């Protein structure tokens, strides 16, 4: 079972190591992890896709919550959300097949971002299914290199959802 967690963290040094370390140390499987800062520069958002049964997902949530720098965790898997990945694909492209490749690029509403004598770099964004599909369609031409970001996700509408109440300790 894959779950998508949206995690707000304090933008402090070592946070990524802490989160990644927690996954490896406790033997959880990260499918993907993407981080970037939010509208508030002191806070970052991580989108973590994790694979595991219900008990594991619950532990992941609880263990993440224990990290001092983790402000809020939302399991958004069952909520309406927009999820995106970005892929860059460097594909073999002799002049004779370029037309065909460009058609595929059009169909997926992707973009060609670099042209060399025998190759093209294609950029596409979308959910994992679409990304997989474009990668598969280009495979017959000979893929030289693929780079994918992890998934980033945002809830639709104004909603946010917590796995557990978030903390706010002032030390008083």
């Amino acid at each position, binding site marked *: 079972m894959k779950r998508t967690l949206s995690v707000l963290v304090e933008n402090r040094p070592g946070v990524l190591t802490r989160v990644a370390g927690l996954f490896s140390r406790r033997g959880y499987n990260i499918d993907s992890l993407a981080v970037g800062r939010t509208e508030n520069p002191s806070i970052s958002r991580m989108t973590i896709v994790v694979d595991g049964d219900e008990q594991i997902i619950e532990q992941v949530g609880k263990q993440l919550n224990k990290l001092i720098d983790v402000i809020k965790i939302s399991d958004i898997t069952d909520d309406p959300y927009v999820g995106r990945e970005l892929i860059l694909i460097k594909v073999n492209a002799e002049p004779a097949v370029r037309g065909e490749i460009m058609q595929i690029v059009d169909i997926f509403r992707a973009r060609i971002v670099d042209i060399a004598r025998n190759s093209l770099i294609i950029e596409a964004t979308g959910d994992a299914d679409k990304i997989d599909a474009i990668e598969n369609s280009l495979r017959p031409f000979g893929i030289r290199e693929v780079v994918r970001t992890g998934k980033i996700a945002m809830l639709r509408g104004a909603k946010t959802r917590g796995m557990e109440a978030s903390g706010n300790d*002032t030390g008083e």
Partner: protein
Amino acid sequence: MLFTIGDRAEAKKLTGAGIIIKALQAEGVDTVFGIPGGSVLPLYHELAVSNIRHILTRHEQGAAHAAEGYARASGKPGVCIATSGPGATNLVTGITNAYMDSIPLVALTGQVSVEMIGHDSFQEADITGITLPVTKANYLVKNVHDLAATIHEAFYIATTGRPGPVLIDIPKDLTTQRAVFRYPPKLHLPGYRSKVSPHALQVTQAAAAIAAAARPLLFIGGGVITSGAHEEVRQLAEGQDIPVVMSMMGKGGFPETSPLFVGMVGMHGTAAANYAMCETDLIIGVGVRFDDRVTGKIEAFAPQAKIIHIDIDAAEIGKVVTAHIPIVSDARQGLAALLEKLSGKGEHPAWRQQIRRWQEENPLHYERCGLKPQYVLEELYNLTKGQALIATDVGQHQMWAVHYYPLERPRAFFSSCGLGTMGFGVPAAMGAAIARPEETVVVITGDGSFQMNIQELATISHYQLPVKIILMNNGYLGMVRQWQEFFFDRRYAYSEMLGNPDFVKVAEAYRIPGRLVMTSEEVVPALTEALATPGPFLLDVKIDREENVFPMVPPGGTLNKMVTGGRGA
């Protein structure tokens, strides 16, 4: 001379080292344990003229364990200091030990100057990286203006919620730079929740489950000691007529002399406690984490039981066993809420009688011949009237100490439970003796463990700490030998301690009096002498070499299938 305004502002500033001292004082720290070195010299320069007492240990691991012993005995956070690089890495085992047993500890480490960090400079180690998985939080401070606030935050995090170790790495140049000392009254910790109150509905459910149970069992752990829930545990057990079992961390959390006390559960638990765990229909787990040494094989653990689990750390609930009624709360608060909801007294005569029968059929037992460690502990108990503070190392002697030295009060037993660190006992006893100078502190150790931090004899000797060392000397890494006897065809591969020194002479070299004990007749006079002699004392007790710890649940086995050695349990 006249000051200009600028001079006056400058005069109000302190060095980073001065700020650290002031912050420690603001946290109420009166004692620290450590060893100086290049990168902490400015700090030591200030420490020497402050009112904070510094205990010089002989190894940084000793400093960390001593700080932990101090914390366990006093209930206050322990503080240790080490220099950068090797000093800091020597703390790691001690920090990990505190992490596993949830003990509040603040470790201050020196670091190379800010501009040298990352260059593999002399005595540089990435100690925040190294300790990331074994600290509750850690910091590398890079600006002198952040020092005070970081120390404040570190103490707060170490001591609140589920306590644990926090490390602060401080580059040397920060300790000589100047800044105004400002202690922030408030902390900004948006991701931290230290206070959790028991959920009313869950407390009501727990109370109903207790009222409905036929064979309830209270299972207490270290959280009872940490939160000071001793009295609440007693009220619940006595008021509802519920027998009590404990993890090793729970020792002292309930009077072991009470008729309701059944014993420690788990791999080396008593037979009655383990049978009770298998037959109970309701476990009330309080401040305990269902460790694998306690549960045995999970699938076969407490098959008929409903589980109430009270713990301050939500992540502990459901981590190992499924809790039917979870209560995320401080143990004391959780129990207090529960006591309020319980009306009337409980009665479980049949269940109590069943447990009594198990106890009578499987008493703790050893052969009364030769020189037996159990006998030494029984006599120690008699002579100290059960009132000594007991620190142990790790091995067979640790298990004998749990079984043969019953305790009535909390904060009187110090042992490395979660990590099982040999070498913990002696420095932990040192820390306890410093925290509670009016008490008698006894270390029960083995010849293997003792030699892992034997250099701390110098510290004990120098400060004349009243630490009585009882060395259960079997000439083996005894627990290892026992496993080899049971599970590896008696092939004692490298578990015999060949080349042991004359321990009485070693003690003497450190100006600590000692005595060799060869026969059981000598035990009482030797213990009497050790206890009557002011200051430290060492007894080198040549116990029967192949004495085993019983009962024993083989690793991965189920609790009711114990090896008893054919002599009862």
